[in-house]
Structures are given as structure tokens and as C-alpha cells.
């Protein structure tokens, strides 16, 4: 029912016993368990499919961040003689890459997900939000495996197990929220505007260079610019990860931003995206099956 176009003739005059009212497709729907089951099943299947048919299976999934890491590492430390004072620069680089790859993989796949899953959307009744979220969940599974590699790499480079690791779940939850909000928004937008995809690809490129991934914040001479970079939620998450998980010599997000106040901006972006993404998706959900 499109809101407003209908005057609710509350209790229908001829009252009689009836079953449950069918309200049509929604973003989440009434059955939360079904929502989770579906998201999980779709994500697992997708995850499984990645490894099917290739001999080395999971190794390939691992190769992507590692190869990118290798290239960036050689270019910046050997060719450009990039000097970072930060401890464990290679680990910091790999961690940044892994998190960025997660974001780009989840959002990049999610953009077209509703259209890719057209067959399901047009033929089965299920909460529509399952589609983009299952994509994020698949990427999250990869992220979990890749993080294991980061940790192993850290310990192998002489890092130690620290209390700060307890922050890891929170940081990953924030990262997942960021990715999920973007995915939700982009997938719904793409149904209407097909050029969302190329635009998003360009934005991802910009995000890669605008986030301290292959560089660390301390190499930026201008303090204002440093703080400006931290408006980006991904930058905050990566920075805090480096501080809490890798080595305390990396400034924490709060220190780098010069106080809590400045972190309100990325927090607002994170919350704003989540709200906007969900509301836009929720508005579009009932009609997605018709508009595809």
C-alpha cells in the first residue's frame, strides 16, 4: 500500500473470521528468524561457490589481498623509498588492505545484487534486505579468514598478544555496519539508476587513496589534513585497528583526531548512512520486484 493513497476503512464493515493479512514484500518482514536463516544460507552458498571448481580454493581468495600487499610493499618501500616511522609497517599495510578489500568486495558486489538475484526477487516472497546483506556476510567470512592471516603475520613479525585485541569485534562490527549501510543504499539505488555502479567504482578508487592504507597518518605533514582524513569512517576504523591490535605506537583514532569531538563527524556519517540506506531501501522494497 503506498502511504497516503489509501484511506484505511478500518474494520471492514462485514467482519468475518479471516487469516493473516498479506502485506506484500518488505525490507525485513515480520519473521526475524527467517530473515537470518535466509541471509546465512545465501551467504554460505555464495562463499562455497567461490571455492568450487578451483583447485586451490581458498588460497585464491587469500591471494588477492596478499598480491596487492606484495605490490604495494615493494613499490613503497623499495622503489619509492617511502619512510614510515610506524612500527610493523608491513602488518599495518596488510591490515589496511584486508579491510579495504572487504569494503570494496561487499559494496562492489552488492550494487548489482538485487538485479543479479532477479530470479529470486520476482519469484519468491522473502525479505528483500536479505539480498544485499547476504553479500556483506559472504565478504565478512572472507574478512574473518584474512584477519587470521594478519594476526599470524603480526605474531611472526614480532608483535605480541595484547589487551587491545578485545577491541577487534567492535571495530569489525563498525566496519560491517559501514559496508552494510553502503550496500543497502547502493543496491536499491541501482535498481533505478544503472550508472550507480561506475560512479561507485570511481568513488572506491578515491576512497583507497584517501584512506591511510598504504601510508600511515604520521607521514602527512599537515595536521589539519590528517584530521580531515579522519572524517572518513574507514580511516578511523583502520587507524584504531593499528593502534589497538598492531602496536600502540600508532596513535589511536582519538589521539589522531585531536579529541573525541572530531570523531563525531565519522560517527554521524556512519549513522546517517545506515538510516538513509535503510529508509531508502525500505521505501523501494515493495516495488523492487516490479521495477527490475
Amino acid at each position, binding site marked *: *500500500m*503506498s502511504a497516503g*493513497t*489509501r484511506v484505511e476503512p478500518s474494520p*471492514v464493515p462485514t467482519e*468475518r*473470521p*479471516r*487469516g*493473516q*493479512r*498479506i*502485506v*506484500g*514484500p518488505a525490507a525485513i518482514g515480520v519473521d526475524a*528468524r*527467517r530473515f537470518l*536463516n*535466509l541471509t*546465512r*544460507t*545465501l551467504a554460505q*552458498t555464495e562463499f*562455497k*561457490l567461490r571455492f*568450487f*571448481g578451483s583447485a586451490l580454493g581458498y588460497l585464491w581468495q587469500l591471494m588477492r589481498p596478499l598480491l596487492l600487499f606484495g605490490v604495494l610493499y615493494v613499490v613503497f618501500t623499495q622503489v619509492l623509498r617511502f619512510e614510515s616511522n610506524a612500527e610493523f609497517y608491513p602488518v599495518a599495510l596488510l591490515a589496511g588492505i584486508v579491510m579495504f578489500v572487504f569494503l570494496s568486495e561487499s559494496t562492489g558486489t552488492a550494487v548489482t545484487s538485487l538485479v543479479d538475484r532477479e*530470479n*529470486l526477487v*520476482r*519469484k*519468491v*516472497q*522473502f525479505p528483500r534486505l536479505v539480498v544485499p546483506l547476504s553479500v556483506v556476510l559472504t565478504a565478512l567470512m572472507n574478512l574473518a579468514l584474512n584477519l587470521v592471516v594478519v594476526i599470524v603475520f603480526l605474531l611472526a613479525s614480532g608483535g605480541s598478544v595484547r589487551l587491545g585485541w578485545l577491541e577487534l569485534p567492535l571495530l569489525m562490527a563498525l566496519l560491517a555496519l559501514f559496508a552494510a549501510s553502503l550496500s543497502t543504499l547502493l543496491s536499491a539505488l541501482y535498481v*533505478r*539508476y*544503472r*550508472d*550507480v555502479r561506475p*560512479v561507485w567504482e570511481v568513488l572506491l578508487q578515491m576512497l583507497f587513496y584517501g584512506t591511510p592504507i598504504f601510508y600511515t597518518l604520521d607521514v602527512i605533514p599537515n595536521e589539519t589534513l590528517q584530521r580531515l582524513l579522519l572524517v572518513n569512517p574507514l580511516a578511523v576504523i583502520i587507524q584504531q585497528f593499528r593502534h589497538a591490535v598492531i602496536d600502540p605506537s600508532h596513535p589511536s583514532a582519538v589521539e589522531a583526531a585531536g579529541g573525541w569531538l572530531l570523531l563525531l563527524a565519522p560517527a554521524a556519517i556512519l549513522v546517517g548512512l545506515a538510516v538513509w540506506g535503510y529508509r531508502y531501501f525500505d521505501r523501494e522494497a*515493495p*516495488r523492487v*520486484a*516490479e521495477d527490475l
Partner: protein
Amino acid sequence: MAPSPGAPAVAVERVSKAFRLPTERVHTLKERALHPFRRSGFEEFVALDEVSFDVAHGEFLGVVGRNGSGKSTLLKCMAGIYRVDHGDIYVDGRLSAFIELGVGFNPDLPARDNVLINGTMLGLSPREARRRFDSVIDFAELREFEHLKIKNYSSGMLVRLAFAVMIHVDAEILLVDEVLAVGDAAFQQKCFDEFYRLREQNRTVILVTHDMSAVERFCDRAVLLERGTLVRDGSAHDVGLEYLEVNFGRPAGAAADEEGEEPERSGDGRAAIASAWFEDEHGNAASMLPMGRPCAFAARVRFAADVTDPVFSFGLENADRANVLAASTQWTEPRTGTFAAGDEVVFRVRFENVLRPGRYDATSAVALRGSGAAWLDRRERLCSVVVSGTQASDALVQLPYETAIDRSPAPSEVVS
């Protein structure tokens, strides 16, 4: 959800649904930017208009209509895939819709994973789906292919697997859209056997189809949709007749009216075929004849002059204009007798309906004896009839036959 006592399984109340068909679709931001003030125009296409009906628990309802009549839209509204514009749909019990068999099947995965995905999509929890896998694979008779990726399945195997999942999801109300059309006759029979079994458990089945014979055989009741409105709600037989009339363009059967302008009419006018119709085995006029039953063609002939021993004939041609039956009194009763001016008789041809399903046109004539082509009156395609049946054979006619398999040679064949 608790079943409310006395509630119909499905209540559709004044449901309307319109689609916006954009006349010029704005697909990209650039187009938007270049033409910011252009209202993207759209035409409203009304797919459903104030449709209402109830389906009782345990009922087997057929929803029929031509392509574009709104029957699939109705199904998708009931399934919750489309949101209705106006009206309400209430469902009492767990509903599963099978718009397509095997939704979510992935060709690169083996049966087990696909049963899990498909079952979950249709409403099972993953654990339930996993637990039922054995019974699904046994029902589908695919145990030996369990580990094969389903892209290597034949289409028949895929259909079996999909159907097996479908009946294992425990739906109390099943919405089925045309999906059975893909299987062979034996498989279809198995499907319907299964539907019957479900019905005995007081489950409800709603079948969307344009296979009228299936509707007549299996449904208790049917509703006919035409351009988005419900034009008929009644017994499967009545709705079936009406559907065939709508579907085959001109009204099939009954009587061709007397004053009807028939271009292909010849004769000297000494006799006139006033009307013609078909009759079923009970002698009632029928526009649809079930295959494999006796039936008859009848024509009312009026004489305007005295005629002795005229020849009455009747021919039937199928939709490809091939003659499938030529009957004439010339062979059966050469002496038909004398008819006086003003006499009115009914000429009848009884035959066993061995024709395959489809529409047939009747041509009838009265001629002078001997000559063969001295028509008193001849009317081509003056009325038509539809043969219904489920036999999915492409044979022109289905002659009665028996089969036998003798394992031991008969004594006469034993060479001594």
C-alpha cells in the same frame, strides 16, 4: 499462526493492482541531469481490478485466464511478491508459492546444497531442510545422482528434484503457477496424485493454468479472469466451458444462427441447413467434448421443395484445415426417403471422439443423390467444437487400442 475457526484459507477482497509502464524510462543520472524537468511519463496498466473470492480449506481451486488476464499477477499478490494497490488478501495457514520450480537452484552445486537453498527460500529453516533431504532425494528418485552437480542433471531430473522439495515444505496452502507443464504425462500424474494426497490432509491448492483439462479433472472450483476482472466463479466445468469460448475466439459450438452470414455457403436453396450443433454422450448440446467419449453432430434441415433420397453429409476439420472425419448417408443409408416442402428434420452423426484436444470446425451439406456436387445447401465451417483431454500425444487421432506383453510364446508359435 493459529488457524482462526471459520476463516477461509484465502480471502481475496476487492484486490486491485496496476503497473506503471514508463513510456520513457529514465535509467541514468545523466538523463536525469540533462532533462531535469521532464516528467517521466508512464501509462497505468490495470492488471487486477476489484477481484474478490474466497478459497475454503481443503479446496482445489483453478485460476484460469488467457495470457495477460492477470492470473499470474493475482498469484504474485497472494504470494506477497507484489504489493496490492487496493484491497486485502488474508491467508489462514502457511502458504507457499511455486511460481517456478527450483527457485534459487544453483547449477554448480550438488543436490544437497540446492535442496537446502530451495527449501530455505520456500520457508523451511536450514535445519529442517537438511533433515528432510533424504526424504526429498528418495521422492525424486535421485539417490544415485546425489553427488552430481545439478548442471549435469537432465531437465526431467531437475523437475523431479524441485517438485520433491516443493511438497516437502509443509505448506498448508500451495500456490502453483503452470509449473507442471514442463513434466511429461507420467510426472504430471504423479504431481496431481501428490496434490490429492495433500488435499486429503485438508491442505489447499490453488492452481494457475490454462490447461483446461487439468482444471476440469482436478479442481473443485475455478475462477476465470479476463482483463484483470473476475468474470466467472463456479464449478470447474462451467468455467472451463466459458474459458474455451473466450479463448478460441468465436463462440464454439451451440447453434450457428439461422440468419448468420456464412460466406462459404452454396446450394440451390431447395433445402437449408438451419442450425447445427454438437452433442455429448447424453445428447445435450455441448461446445466442448471430452476426448474418448461418444458424441454426435446434429444439423436441423428444412426443405423448401420436395426432394427424394437426398444425401446428408458432415465433415470435420481440425485447426490445420485437415479433414479428420467425413460422414455421409450415401454409404450408410442410400435411400433416405422422400421429404416434402416444409419438412424439418434433424440429421445426426454419432461417433466416438478419438480426436486430439483442440478446436474443430464442422461442414455440413445436403445434396441430390448420385451427382455428388449438386448441393441443395452446403455450409462450410458452420459451427465448431473444442475437444478437451489430457492425452499429451501429438497423434492426430487416438484410436482405441490395447497393449499386451507376452513373456512366454503362445503355444501356436512354438515351432515343433
